[in-house]
């Protein structure tokens, strides 16, 4: 018999406890009503992620590359990692290539990490990724990295710029999982990110930039093109 069979055998031989009662999530959902409207959801998201020390900047679907260039320059960003095969990546490249030498150098993530690991860890100041959505009640960004925007883009660079469509803010994690039917098909890696990397491991003193980004900067696009 294998370890597996013996473990399962002992579990099956154990006395039956109380019967399996499917937990009722209805009451919990009722205790966590969604924000009254889109503006309230945006406000709650902003308040919570700012409390976790992320920056949030209002912008539009047209203007965000200009804002990003300005913010990046202000933060001294020399190299900016992006996904050239995404729509926003193409938009960024078109804009920054037109901006001239003052703009940060764009680095495409277009080859396996194994080929350029040291460069990724040593030479990249910042990255831009999209967000699949966000969560209001914890101030969190949802990312499903893929071949066009790999996993390490939101982890290795010191500054992570995130483009978020304000229409994609869910009330809470359960609402996001349910509305988007996550259980029917999970990606290789799903991430929920609530601000910059941090630790309180030395004398309970909070310090940012433990292993991941020191700064998370949200470019919040209003679909109507209006700043809230």
């Amino acid at each position, binding site marked *: 018999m294998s*370890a*597996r069979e013996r*473990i399962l055998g*002992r*579990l*099956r031989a*154990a*006395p039956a*406890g*109380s019967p*399996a*009662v499917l*937990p*009722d*999530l209805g*009451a*919990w959902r009722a*205790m966590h009503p969604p924000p009254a409207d889109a503006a309230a959801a945006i406000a709650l998201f902003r308040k*919570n992620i700012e409390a*976790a020390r992320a920056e949030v900047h209002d912008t539009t679907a047209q203007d965000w590359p200009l804002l990003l260039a300005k913010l990046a320059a202000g933060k001294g960003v020399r190299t900016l990692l992006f996904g050239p095969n995404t729509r926003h990546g193409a938009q960024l490249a078109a804009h920054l290539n037109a901006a001239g030498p003052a703009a940060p150098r764009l680095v495409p*993530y277009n080859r396996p*990490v194994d080929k350029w690991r*040291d460069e990724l*860890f040593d030479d990249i100041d910042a990255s831009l990724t999209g967000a699949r959505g966000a969560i209001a009640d*914890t*101030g*969190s960004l949802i990312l499903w990295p893929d*071949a066009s925007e*790999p*996993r*390490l883009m939101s*982890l290795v660079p010191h500054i992570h710029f995130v483009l978020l469509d304000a229409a994609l803010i869910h009330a*809470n*994690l*359960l609402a996001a*999982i*349910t509305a988007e039917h996550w*259980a029917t098909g*999970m*990606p*290789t*890696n*799903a*991430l*929920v990110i*609530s601000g*910059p*990397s*941090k630790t*309180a*491991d*030395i*004398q*309970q003193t909070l*310090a940012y*930039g*433990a*292993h*991941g*980004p020191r700064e998370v900067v949200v470019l919040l696009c209003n679909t109507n093109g209006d700043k809230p």
Partner: protein
Amino acid sequence: MSQPIQIHPAKGFKERSLAALNDPAQRKNFRGAMDFLQMKRRAQFPDPKDLSSLRDLGEAIRRYSLARLPDLLEQLERNLTANGIQVHWAETPDQANAIALGIARRVDARLIAKGKSMVSEEVGFNHAMEAAGIETLETDMGEYIVQLAGEAPSHIIMPAIHKTKQQIAALFAEKIPGVAYSEDVDTLIQIGRRVLRRKFAAADIGLSGVNFAVAETGTLFLVENEGNGRMCTTVPRVHIAITGIEKVVAKLEHVPPLNSLLPRSATGQPVTTYLNLISSPRKAGELDGPEEVHLILVDNGRTQAYGDLQLRATLQCIRCGACMNHCPVYARIGGPRLRHHLSGPDRRHHLAPPARSRRHLPAVLRLDAVPRLRRRLSGAHPDHRSADPLAQ
């Protein structure tokens, strides 16, 4: 064979406890840390009714998972396997280490970067790897500090809670080449960041624990603040996750309520910086992530606890560590001196030293156990309350 439940003899416990009680610096560290964590947790749950209903729901979810445990483990294995994650079963710590060692030898690993994993502590993972000539490196800042000092973690959530920044400054200056003494916490963390980044890039294997394993989707759910867990599970070519068999939950929608309890109870945070949901190794066309992902499911006495309906409830534990933060005994003699200190359903360590037998198990958490323990330790007269070193 599964290990029988072992009651650890409290060998040297009395001496170690008295030494801890008479170490004012360490007692001040712990008292301050416990007060801080209690206050943070209280602030997260301003309404006792909300806390109570969330705990009831959390318990219902864990009870449901345990009631269907063998079925859910099989479902988890089926779905993980279909997703390309390799599942291994270990009855004992030796088996768990042998499985990891087999993988490490096959890929010719020299360095294993570790995210925080209490089950890896439970099975003596580092020791087993090092005996086989494979370096293991703790990458959680607290665990890194503790490993650098040659010590054991003193708290499941805050492993270096027993050390002051002065001690850490001296440790870094002594052990890390080219580092000058600095008590500035940001500077110390940036030193750790710099050292460990080189290691993530060089590691052959990343090891992690698991907070919840979701049966219906075959997903490993990990929470953390630092990003070292994501580094360990994303950068090296091979990721090995190790966890107890009780960590399985049936549905993905069962995770949010548990994950609402976990960080709020543990560190008083509404959410951790990262929720890392892993469902497969790197797929064709993807540019990063491990090529192999393994899950080692550890029994180590859990099936025996499961067989006892009273002890089965201990397997509901989500290891938030709040019990340690509120334990009057731990607050006073916690830390490296209290060797068998890790809470949760680890059968070898679960029964903390003052519990001589199963019927005394709850005594560890009972406030009224403190004066009794003090009398046992010091033989002092019970009337001398004002002079009671435990009464503060």
